């Protein structure tokens, strides 16, 4: 399948880094592959954008997989996978609440922990621990070789993904 993604192996897990537009397609493929048990959805502020990490397990042979996708700050939209795995419903709501990732197609995307009328997404690095905006915070550059790989020229694994963005 020609998805914009990169596959690697970290410890005992398969890690797929995928373009946000292909995230849904990859998830459907994994669901068809028998990954039936959702462990968690994490969201990470990478400094240049927000990363969504989906952890899955296949119950039959206990294979583990991680799906990662990066979205920019100004358009943090990912397709929801709640219809594939209903168990990620609250995890996605949590990622929306605390990190500000919007999940397209989520049945009930409301704030989970904080009050409905709050505006901040406090886990983003632009806020300090107390939830106040950090003065002078600027987003980092989007990594030039994007974390995923374009399908037509199937390249070998590039450098480690940009861990940067500790703009403080």
């Amino acid at each position, binding site marked *: 399948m020609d998805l914009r993604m990169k596959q690697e192996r*970290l*410890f*005992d*897990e398969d890690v797929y880094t995928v373009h946000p537009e292909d995230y849904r397609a990859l998830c459907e493929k994994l669901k068809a592959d028998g990954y*039936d*048990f*959702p*462990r*968690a959805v*994490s*969201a*990470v*502020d990478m400094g240049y954008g927000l990363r969504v*990490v989906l*952890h899955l*397990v296949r*119950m039959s042979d*206990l294979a*583990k997989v*991680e799906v990662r996708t990066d979205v920019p700050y100004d358009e943090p939209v990912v397709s929801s996978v709640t219809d594939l*795995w*209903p*168990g*990620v*419903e*609250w*995890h996605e709501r949590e990622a929306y609440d*605390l990190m500000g990732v919007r999940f397209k197609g989520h*049945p*009930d995307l*409301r*704030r*989970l*922990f*904080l009050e409905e009328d709050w505006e901040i997404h*406090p*886990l983003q690095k632009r806020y300090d*621990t107390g939830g106040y905006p950090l003065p002078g915070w600027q987003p980092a550059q989007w990594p030039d070789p994007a974390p995923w790989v374009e399908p037509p020229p199937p390249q070998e694994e590039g450098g480690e993904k940009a*861990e940067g963005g*500790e703009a403080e």
Partner: protein
Amino acid sequence: MSTISVDPVPGRSDEMVVNMGPQHPATHGVLRVVIGLEGERITRAVPHIGYLHRNHEKIEEARTYFQVVPYTDRMDYVSGTQNELPVVLAVEDLLGVEVPQRAKQIRTIFFELFRIASHLVWMGTAMLDLGAITPFLYTFWDREIILGIVERTAGARMLPNYYTFGGVRRDVHPEFFKDVADFLDHLERRMPDYEHLVLENPIVHARTKGVGVLSKERAIARGVTGPVLRASGVAYDVRKAFPYDAYPDVEFEVPTSPDGDTYARFWVRFQEIYQACKIIRQLLEQTPKTGPYKGKVSPRLKISGERYRAVENSRGELGVYVVGDGSDRPYRIKHRGAAFTNLQVIPDLFIGAKFSDAIAILSSLDPVFGEIDR
């Protein structure tokens, strides 16, 4: 599913919307469930959480890895050291530390002791929810004994902050192994009485059998773990699936029940207490009385890389996703709460049940809000 307004729905004058919690004796903390009642039957249930959200994940980014460990204690506060293990394991993986076998065994003994303590608290509070006051006081007494053993070694009763990267913080008390063996003898004498009070009680049968049935497929899809999943017939247990610490060296069974109802969840927790006793007994024989209890870890450890690690705590799969950026503080920590994920099934189980059943179902899910709200 969307927000229920507290106003009566047009055309549904027979429905009453009640707001259960955050201060309600049977919510095990600060859960709020907005329930639509038609007589005694529940037509809608929307859980609201976040009344104990205390920014664990944000504040842990401002702490060093060593300071993160005591924070994790405060998540699932009923089961103490069990919460520390995922972080410790993930950091050890990323550091590549060698952990002495004895340290692993001591960790596992503590882990299973706290599983017993947590299930005892569950037993007492579940029976309290069903209206029986007395079992609560019996189980809390037994829990006090466990806390006494823990305090003797770790220095604190409930939230001991005992595990550390590469092992445990200090060696066990000289009488630790004897204390634990004595406690297991005591508990195994008590367990038949507990079974008589809870599992063999005809009123408990009437209240729980066939109530709140969670099917196997639904349980897996909902991401449910722990006793709730195993009561639905899935033998998924992180201790068996992805073994950690001393679990590869011990023999134990994963009790499952095909029923998936509230009674099955009660039953599975009882069997887990027996299995925990079995595990601890094996470890008491295997563990050397003296020896190393900690590997070599720099006090200024710096970590880069990402790792998801999970353990099987009393409520299910407690995971953590650690992202290190090469400094001594975590760049991002995401806790995957077991009770958090399990609590999602509230609408599935509540709708159609009686209001009294909802109380029994909720107590069989055994939520702990430190970990759900984080």
